[in-house]
C-alpha cells in the first residue's frame, strides 16, 4: 500500500477538515476520508473544534464574518503538517480566499498564508502528495463524473479522481457531456436564485441520465446534493450519487460490493 511521493508521509500529521455538509448530511464521506488517508499511510487527526470554512459569509460579501470564521479554522489547523478537505470548494476557500480577507491584518495574513500552503483537497492530496493507489477494490458498474468548479478551476482537480477510480476493477467510466460546466449549486446561489439554479441543474441531470451510468460521482457535497436532489425529484432513482471517497471505500450501502471485497480480504476481483 505504501508507495508515496512524500516518503515521510507517515511522519506527517494530517488534520481532516470535515466540512459542515459532510458533518451534518453525509458523515460517511468523513469516515471514507479518514480511511483513505490512513490507507495512504497518513496519521490522521480530526480536531473536535471545527465548524465551517466560511464560504456563506465570504460569498455574501460579509468580510468581517468571514474573518471570524477563518480565524478559528486557522487556530485549530495551523499546527498540522497538512490540512485535508473532502471538498474542492472548501479547500479553495481556505487555500485561496482566507488571505484575501486578511490583507489589512499582517499577523493573521501570515498565518492564513501558512495555512494555505498546507491545505489540500482530499482526492488530489491522495494522488499528488501521497501517490496513493487504491488496491483490491472492485465494483461492477459504471460511473460518470461531475467536475466541481472550485476544485477544477481554483485547484486543478481533474485527472486525480479519474486516476483513483481507474484502479477500481470492474468500474467503467462514462463521459458526462459538459462535465466541467457548473451544476447550478453555487452555495447560497441555489436558494437565492432557486429558479435559475433549477434550470441549470435540470440540464445537468439530463446529461447525467443520458450517460446511463450506475453512479454519479464527484468531490463536493454541495454539488452532489444538488444533482442527487434533482435526480430524485425527477424520479431517476436508478442513478446512485456518491462522493468519490465513498465509492473507493465502500462506506455507503450503495457501494457495498467493494466493502464486502475488503472484508473478504481477497485480491480476487471476481464476484
Amino acid at each position, binding site marked *: 500500500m505504501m508507495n508515496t511521493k512524500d516518503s515521510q508521509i507517515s511522519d506527517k500529521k494530517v488534520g481532516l477538515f*470535515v466540512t*459542515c455538509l*459532510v*458533518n*451534518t*448530511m*453525509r*458523515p460517511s464521506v*468523513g*469516515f471514507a476520508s*479518514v480511511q483513505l488517508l490512513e490507507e495512504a499511510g497518513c496519521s490522521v487527526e480530526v480536531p*473536535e*473544534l*471545527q*465548524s*465551517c470554512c*466560511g464560504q*456563506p*459569509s*465570504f*460569498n*455574501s*460579501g*460579509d468580510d*468581517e*464574518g*468571514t474573518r*471570524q*470564521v477563518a*480565524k*478559528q479554522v486557522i487556530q485549530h489547523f495551523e499546527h498540522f503538517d497538512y490540512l485535508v478537505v473532502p471538498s474542492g470548494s472548501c479547500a479553495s476557500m481556505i487555500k485561496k480566499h482566507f488571505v484575501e480577507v486578511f490583507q489589512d491584518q499582517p499577523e493573521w495574513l501570515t498565518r492564513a498564508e501558512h495555512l494555505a500552503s498546507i491545505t489540500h483537497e482530499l482526492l488530489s492530496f491522495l494522488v499528488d502528495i501521497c501517490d496513493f493507489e487504491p488496491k483490491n477494490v472492485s465494483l461492477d458498474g459504471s460511473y460518470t463524473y461531475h467536475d466541481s*468548479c*472550485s476544485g477544477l*478551476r*481554483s485547484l486543478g482537480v481533474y485527472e486525480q479522481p479519474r486516476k483513483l477510480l481507474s484502479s477500481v476493477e470492474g468500474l467503467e467510466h462514462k463521459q458526462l457531456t459538459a462535465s466541467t*460546466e*457548473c451544476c*447550478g449549486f*453555487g*452555495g*447560497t*446561489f*441555489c*436558494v437565492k*436564485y*432557486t*429558479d*435559475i*439554479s*433549477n*434550470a*441549470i*441543474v435540470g440540464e445537468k441531470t439530463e446529461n447525467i441520465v443520458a450517460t446511463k451510468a450506475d453512479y454519479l460521482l464527484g468531490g463536493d457535497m454541495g454539488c452532489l*446534493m*444538488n444533482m*442527487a*436532489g*434533482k435526480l*430524485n*425529484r425527477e424520479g431517476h432513482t436508478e442513478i446512485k450519487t456518491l462522493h468519490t471517497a465513498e465509492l473507493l471505500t465502500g462506506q455507503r450501502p450503495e457501494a457495498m460490493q467493494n466493502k464486502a471485497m475488503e472484508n473478504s480480504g481477497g485480491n480476487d476481483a471476481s464476484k
Partner: protein
Amino acid sequence: MQANKPQNFYKNVSEALAQPNLKAIIRRTTDKADAKRAEAVSNFPGFENARTQGQKIKDHVIKHMDHYLAEFEKNAKAQGAIVHWASTGEEATKIVMDICKQHEAKKITRSKSMLGEEIGLSHALDHSDMERIETDLAEHIIQLAGDPPSHIVWPAMHRSREDVVKLFRSNHKSPTQSEEIIDLVRSARRDLRTKFLTSDIGISGSNFLLADSGSSCTVTNEGNAELTITPPKVHIVTAGIEKLVPSMAHAVPLLRLLTRSATGAEITQYITFHNGAKREGDADGPEVSHIVLVDNGRTKMLADGMEEMLRCIRCGACMNHCVVYKHIGGHAYGSVYPGPMGSVLTPHIEGLEVANKQTHACTLNGRCEEVCPVNIPLPKLLRALRAKSWSKKYEPITNRFVVSAYAMLASRPKLFQLSSSMGVVMMKLFSRKGWIQSMPFTSGWTSNRDLIAPESKTFMQQYKKQRKSSNTAEKQQ
C-alpha cells in the same frame, strides 16, 4: 418590447425563465460561439501568451491613463479631429445631439456601439426630430422590433428568423416574400442603402483609440462602420476612455484576441483605422470629425480598485460561457451590458444599490475568467461588489440576519457542532425513505429538488463515540 430595469431583476428573471423558447434561441448562438472560440484557441498555440500580453498592454494604459489621454487628444487634433470630453452619459449624449443640431441634421446613420447604448444615444435620437438609421443588420432588426440589445456582439440574438420575416414584411417598403436569409438581407439593403448614402451625420463607436496617431479603429463584419465614416459630411466617434492603446503595435495583439474570443474568427471582414477629417488630396472621408471621450464611471472604477475591469475589450466570451446568462438571456439583466462583465460594469453606471442583485446571480464557477482574453478576474470583482454592497447595507435585512447568524455560530465551533446535531434531529423528522421533500425554511431548496436526509448523528458525534469505544477497548486490552 419595453426595456427591463436592473432593479426589477427578480421579475425579469422569472419572465425570462417562463419564455418557452428562450433557452433554445440563446443556445443557437452561444453554443456555436463556444465551439468556434474553442477551435480558434486550439489553432492559436500562443493564445495563453497572447492573453498575458493583452492584459499587460491594457494594464499599462490603465496605469498611465492620464498620459495616453493627453497624447491621444494632441494627435487626434493634429489629424483635424475635434475632441470632446464627457464625464457622464448625459453629457456625452448632449455633446452629440448639439453637434447634430448645429449641422441641422435630418438623417443620422449609426454603427453598432455599446457605448452609444450606454450613454442613451439611440433613445435621445428617437426622441428628436431626426431619423436614426442603423447600419448594422442586427441593430436594424432590433430597431424595428423596438428591443434593446440582448448581447454585446449579437444584439438581435433573441430574435428568430420568423420574427425577422414578420418585422421586414411589415416595415420594409418592398418586402420579400421569401424567408431565405439572402433575400431578407436584400430587402434590408433596398430599404436602407439610399438612406446610408444620403445621411447627414454618421456616428460610430470605437474598438481601439491609438494614442500615438490619434486614430480610431472599428471592427465589423458588414463594413457598416465605414458607412458612417465615408458618405456623411460629419462623423462622430463616441468612445469610452478605456479604449486607449499606445499604438498600432498594441492594437493588433488585442485584435487577435478580440475576434477569436468573440466569434472564433481569426479576423473580421472589416478592420478600419480612421484618422480625423478629410484632408486635401484625400479621396473620401468626413469634412468634420468629432471624437467624444466618455468617462461615465470609468475613473471611479479606477479609484474603487476595480481597474481590472477596464481591461475589457467587449468580446462577449464571458456571457457565451456563463451558465446563468445561457438560461436567462441578456434582457433579464435590465442593463445595457449583460452577463458577468455587465454585472460588474452596471453597478458603476447605474449605481450599486439598483444593480447589486445581479452581482449575486452568479455561482462563482470561474468559467468566465477562464475564457476572458485579458484575464479579468470577474468572480473576484463580483465578490468585491457583494462586499461593498454588504458594507453599505444594501443587502436585504433577512439575508444580513441569516448570514450574520451563520458567522456567529461558525466562529464558535462548540456551538456550531451543537446546532448541527440539533439540525440533524430536526431534519430526521421530515425524512421519508432517505429524502426530505419539504420542510419549513427550506423552500429555496425543496421547491425544485429533494434534500438528502442526514444520517442519525453528525460525523463528529459518531466519530467521537467510535474513538471513545476504541480507546476503551485499547485500555481493556
